[in-house]
Structure formats: C-alpha cells, structure tokens
C-alpha cells in the first residue's frame, strides 16, 4: 500500500487547487444544475461502457452463441454441416476419452490449486520474518510466474524429457534407475502437475503476502503471552484471518487450472497415451487434429456451462462473505 502514497499526495494537491478555483456563485449554480447533471452522468457512463460492451458482444458473446450452433452440428472448420441435435453431447458423454480427460483435469486442478497454495503460503510466511535480502528473494521467487510458459517448458523438457536428460541421469547415478518422466503415464501426470505447481506458486505467494500484510502482529504477541504454540497461532489466528483472500485465490487458481492449455500441451502434448490430456487439450485435439468441430466444441461448451454455474455460485458466495 505504501507505494500508492505518492499519487495520493498529488491528489490532495489537486484538491487544494480545486477548492481555490471555487467562484462565489459556484455552490448555488451546482445545486440548480444537479438534476441535469444526473441524466448527463447516466449518458456519460453509458458512453464510457460502449467500447467494452462492443468487444464483449462481438469477441466474447458472439463466439459463444456460434459455439452453441457448432456443438449441435456435425460440421468441420470449413463446412457448417447438418443439425444433429444433441448427438455430439451424447457421443462425448459416452466416450472413455472424455471421462479420462475430465478425470485428469480434476487431478490437475486439485493438485495445482492446493499444491501451489501450500508452497506459496509457506514461502510467504517465511518471507514475512526478518531475513537478510528479503526483497531480492521476493522478486526472484516470482520469476517462475513471470517467465513465459513456452520458455520454462523448454527448460523442463531439457531437464526431464529423455533417459539421458540431467534429471534421470542424476537419479540414475544415485542408483534410483532412470525414470522416464514424460514417457511413463503416471510419472508424466505427476511431472505435469509438479510443473503447474512450479509455475503457479508465485501467484499464490503474492496473494498470501497481500493477505498476511493485513494481519495485526500484536495478535501473535497476545497469543504467545497466553501460551499458544506456533502451530496453534497458525491455525487459530493466521488461517482464519486470511480465510477470505485465500478463498478468492483458490477460486482464481481453479479457473486458471481448468482453462490451462500451454502448461500441459507444451510439456507432453497430452501424452503418453492421453495420460495428461485435460479437457482443454482434448477439445483442441478434437477440433484441430481430428477435425471434428462438433464434438470438440461440445466439450468446450460443457466446460463453459460448468464454469458459468460454478463461478456464479462462487461469486454470490464471495459477495455474501464480503457483507458479513
């Protein structure tokens, strides 16, 4: 918050200027004008929303409607195809590949959200104490989130992809065999999840740091006088006090994980044998590699519906939590 102080001082400067500029008749004039001001305000507000609404309708809204049409047709990227009702949905909902992708998405999301939260919160707590060079570590630890996924996935590939890569070679030298991180289905799934946690923990660290900054230090002093252990202080004071921001960060990360494409696709392209195919990767492959637009868009559409329902519910809940 401190970095926002300097503009606030300019603000007060402006305020003083505005006050000085008040003419003697200013106040009366404002009162007379207030009604026209209100309708004028409404007009201005609408005008200010126009660019946003236009983009929303054309680039966000229209494709959704069109996706609905595609999902009920058996077309391709070039041909619109014929209306087939809900056949595409029936096809996917009865296919193993879809449920396989749904299951991996669930695992990926749960590990991604709670893994990155645990690491992020732990680091945020550690960085809250007095450590020499704390500011530098804070910036350095954000790098995994700042560096483009294309770049970091390249590095991860180099580290683990083949049996002769550094990581398997290192484990081999330690007598642990040479694990095929991206060729074994289970190991590949684990590797992708670990990669996601590595990419996302800085986000959680930032969210947690922000939340922790608002926790009053004197509470801990009082608690330690009362004889509360470190662990008790954490579960009884820290966690309840950062509950709401934590909740928000979980929601955001859930959305990030469910919608994630590059983290998975760049590391494994969904393989081996679909072991790391999430719903988004599945939809992408169905449309752009199998050229089956209908089922692919239907998958995306199902995800969309689920996310709309879930996010509307969560939105309500956050608002309620805010009112309390």
């Amino acid at each position, binding site marked *: 918050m401190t970095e926002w102080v300097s503009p606030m001082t300019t603000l007060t400067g402006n305020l003083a200027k505005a006050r000085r500029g008040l003419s003697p008749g200013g106040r009366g004039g404002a009162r007379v004008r207030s009604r026209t001001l209100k309708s004028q305000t409404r007009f201005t507000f609408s005008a200010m929303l126009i660019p946003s609404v236009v983009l929303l309708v054309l680039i966000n809204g229209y494709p959704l409607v069109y996706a609905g049409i595609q999902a009920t047709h058996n077309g391709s*990227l070039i041909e619109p195809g014929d209306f087939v009702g809900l056949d595409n949905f029936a096809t996917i909902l009865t296919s193993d590949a879809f449920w396989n992708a749904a299951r991996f998405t669930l695992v990926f999301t749960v590990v991604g959200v709670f893994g990155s939260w645990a690491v992020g919160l732990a680091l945020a707590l550690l960085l809250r104490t007095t450590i020499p060079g704390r500011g530098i570590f804070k*910036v350095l630890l954000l790098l995994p989130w*700042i*560096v*483009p996924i294309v770049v970091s996935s390249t590095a991860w590939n180099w580290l683990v992809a083949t049996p002769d890569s550094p990581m398997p070679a290192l484990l081999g030298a330690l007598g642990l065999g040479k694990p095929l991180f991206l060729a074994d289905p289970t190991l590949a799934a684990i590797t992708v999840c670990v990669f996601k946690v590595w990419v996302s923990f800085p986000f959680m660290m930032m969210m947690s740091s922000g939340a922790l900054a608002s926790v009053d230090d004197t509470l801990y002093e009082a608690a330690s006088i009362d004889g509360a252990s470190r662990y008790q202080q954490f579960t009884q004071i820290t966690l309840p006090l950062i509950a709401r921001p934590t909740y928000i960060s979980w929601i955001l990360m859930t959305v990030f994980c469910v*919608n994630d494409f590059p983290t998975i696709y760049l590391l494994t392209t969904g393989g081996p044998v679909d072991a790391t195919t999430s719903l988004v990767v599945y939809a992408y492959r169905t449309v752009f590699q199998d050229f089956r637009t209908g089922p692919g868009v239907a998958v995306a559409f199902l995800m969309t519906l689920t996310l709309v329902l879930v996010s509307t519910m969560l939105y309500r809940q*956050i608002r309620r939590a805010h009112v309390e």
Partner: protein
Amino acid sequence: MSAVVNRAVSTPGTARELRGRWWRFALILLITAVLLVPIAVVVLLSILPGASSTSSGFTFEHFGYVFGQTLAVTWIQNSLITTLVTVVLAVAVAAPAGYVLSRGRSRAVSAYSLLLFILQSLPIITSVVPLFILFADFGLADSLVGLTIVYVAATMAVATWMMAAYFDSIPVSLEEAAWIDGLSVFGSFLRVVLRNSLPGVLSTAIFAFLLSWNDYLVALVFLRSDVNFTLPIGVQSFFQQSSIDWGSVMALAVVMMLPPVLIFVALNKYFSISGIGGSLAGR
C-alpha cells in the same frame, strides 16, 4: 549491516534471534536456488558452446545464429507490435469501463460486473474456434490484427476490474470539487481520476503485457505462416526440426523472457495482484 546489528541489540535474546535469521536466510537461499534451476538452465545453455562448436567458455554464437539465420527478428517485431497495441487498447477500453464500475451504483452496473466475472472464467478454447472461422472470412485468421483483437477481448474483464479497484481508492470528493468547477463527468475522469491513477494503469498494462506476450494457445490456432509467428510459436517451431538445437532454442528463449522479466523487476512495486481479489469481492 550496522542497521541489522542495531536492531538485533535492541531486541531480547539477541544471539538466538540473529542465528535464526541466518538459518532462515540459508533455507530461503537453498529453496530459491532449487526453484530457479530451470531458468538458470535456459540462460546457461544459450551461452555455452554447442557440440559442434570450436569455441570454449562462453559464446554468443547461438544468438548470432538465431538473429542471422532464422526469422527471429521478424518474430520479435510481431510480438512487440501485438503486445504494445494490446496494452494500449486494453487500458483505453478498461479504464472508462472500470470507472463506471467503480462509481456507478445501479443494477445494470452490477449485472455487467457479474457478466465480466463469468466471461473471464470461460475457457478461451470455446471462443477461439468460432473466432477462427469468423476471422477467416475477413482475412484476419492468419494475421496479427486478428490476434490483437482477441487479446484485447481476453484481457478486458480482468483489466476492467483492476482499473475499478484502483479507482475505488480515489475519493469521490475530489471529483465533486472538479464538477463544481464546471468539469463534466468525463472531463473529471480524464483530468482528475485518470491523471492520479498511474499505479492502477501500470498494473493493468503489465497484466495485459504478460497475457499477450506469453500467450500460446490463440497464436497457435490463428497463426499459420512463419512470417506472422509471434515469439512463443517461433520458439516452438524450433522443436519441429528433426534434431533439437538446444543452444538456439535457449537463445531465443532468453530473448523472449527478457522483456517480461525486466518490466516486472522495474515496475514490480506497482503491480498489485491482490487488487484483483479485492475488486472481485467488492462488487
């Protein structure tokens, strides 16, 4: 150093406290070192000579190859143009909309806020397929213009919230003073609110920058010809060759990660991620 010692002296249990501090330093140093291995790998491989190279020690031969023999310069230009236009447009669209969200207290405004919330949670793959077909009709499919439009739309929801969250922190009384002075609502938005919102604007700009600079999916779907590639697709295209030349890949990767890292390190203090959460809860 003396400051540290002074503070340590003033607290009880000095020696223990000081030792704990250095233990934590060692711990965080180790964690950071391990976590940054992949990033160090990128930098190292880009400056270490390749297998067929005659030079020893550090070398810039990979950079020379990438800039001289590939389309890297074109890709960098493409990425820069797309990203800069996205940043400018995203702020230009999100700032006024965020202002309305921050100041307007009507049902319609709340509904619009909810709509934005839903939109940002939708998988981009849903809209990418229809947009690809739509843009193909207008010749925008394999083009940077089309890509930029999609990026602006994709950043809009979060950018609008970030702006709204910042505007919330600017007192309305300031504007009232400006209105009495005879400024219109839009005039006071431009001259009073926006002029004092540099941190908010920067925050939003960094967000839009990161999104469009790092995007892979939209570019993968839209861009077909290699002269139109942005950097992510360019880096990936090196992998499609039969044997991967790691030195060149990493050299281009270094080029790609420099701008976001530099911008973030320089403007880090302005970027408030928790603002997103706050605005989420506030409306």
